[in-house]
């Protein structure tokens, strides 16, 4: 392992440790976060997905 790779590995391990001590999230919290995010996205999605996608036609460019 080169010195740079060594440093990188050390850095990553340190970061991971910090993350573990800071977070108290279990799998359930993570799932809830994802649900919240998807709900927020649901609220901004274009109405009528099928229609919007069907109408999305672009002329060539470049």
């Amino acid at each position, binding site marked *: 392992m080169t010195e740079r790779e060594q440093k990188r590995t050390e850095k990553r391990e340190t970061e991971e440790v910090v993350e573990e001590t800071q977070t108290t999230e279990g799998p359930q919290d993570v799932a809830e976060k994802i649900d919240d*995010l998807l709900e927020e996205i649901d609220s901004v999605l274009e109405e009528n997905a099928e229609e919007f996608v069907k109408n999305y036609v672009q002329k060539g460019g*470049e």
Partner: protein
Amino acid sequence: MSAIHKVIGTETEFGISVRGAPDFNPVLASSIVVNSYAGLRAKIKWSHEEESPGRDARGFGPEGGLMPDIDGGLVNVVLGNGARFYVDHAHPEYSAPEAFDPLEAALYDKAGEVVVTRAAEGARTLLEEGQSLVIHKNNSDGKGNSYGSHENYLVNRELPFGEIVDFFTTFLVTRQVFTGSGKLGSENGRQTVPFQLTQRADFFEEEVGLETTLKRPIINTRDEPHGDPTKYRRLHVIIGDANMSEVQNLIKLGSAAIILMAIEDGAIPDSLRLANPVDSTWQVSHDLDLTKPLELAEGGTATALELQGRYLEWAKKYAENTDLPESYSQVLTEWEGVLADLEADPLSTADRLDWAAKYRLLLDYRERDDLEWDAPKLKLLALQYHDVDPAKGLHHKLVEAGRIRRLFTPAEVEQAVNEPPERTRAYFRGRSVSKYGDSLVAANWDSLVFDSGEDTLKRVPMMEPLRGTKELVSGLLDSSDDAASLLRALGENDD
């Protein structure tokens, strides 16, 4: 021959549509958008005197039939940040100002999203009740139509074009693992897949060529230096996706720039030639596990990640022996990090690569809503990922939720919307637009034409991309109150 400083600029053709009016003419819609930009700008003629998109870098002459249809007499503005914002075919296009390094190029690319978002917002009053513009920073409509996102790199004219073909092709094919913006399905007759890494790979059909709209080549030979043609090439890279992720853009632009410098300096020892570059292009894009062995021309196989690992090692070694702008160390760290993470778990790059972020989102939706890959809702999610409007765009939502890393603060982006880069000729262009916009009648990448009220128009050539910088011309610009005094001062001072 030796490497020259890599001045970098991006061009983005945005997808455009009108909510509430699906048949709205896209050329008209694009014109309305460009016309509606109310920021710092000068609405002027774009001069094609020095442009020759039909000229071929392999030495062929201009071919008939390629020149028309470029200008079209449509709307063209030059912005206070030095960019060009105009209607190209049926799309609004933002051509970013020349940047000094990859970090600055990524910043001015992001500024373009803000420009087009504001322009679309400004166009609201011109549309009927119930209509609104939607702008996507993507490259495909999912129905076989692709539009471009091009990168430009200043290259030493002395480098034989054949060496670019030999040493850069495999890099471009394999970099797709970190340059893709992700796409549902396949197009252009390629084999069916549920999802792939890039928007563009399906459309590439040649190894080398001049075309950009059909039979697209991996290496594009357009020979328009936009600078001193005896010293420079502008390598026009058309095989890339428009990226919304800032980190991804930095890796994409920075890795290409450093590899090009290494090629100029003869520091790429092996061409790593692929047996079938065109087939490998879509094969890499279709390979979500990143394990597909690609056939090498010299025999044997290697995966895209293995080949990228070779380029990274050469780039690191090259950087150790070369004096590069500071941001290249960040490029190398990010490049190394993304290759390692793609190797360990491709989806772990969802915090910085558009394709992985989009794929992760689609997987989450499939799980929650039990959707098939061809569900309209997934198609909408994949499309809306690219909406540039922060209120609607899903890339923006993922950034807000902390799922995608940023490189730039909103204040830095805002400055790039209004102010030009300081270390290239874009500085002179941008400041001239802001200060003498009323006297500017035409512009080009390598010249400005002023009407200062005298008998003749005055053309100021800017054939050197690294002159016209803040250091060289801010004094002149600060002390000249109008175009006439600027031109007088320029006459006395050859910078």
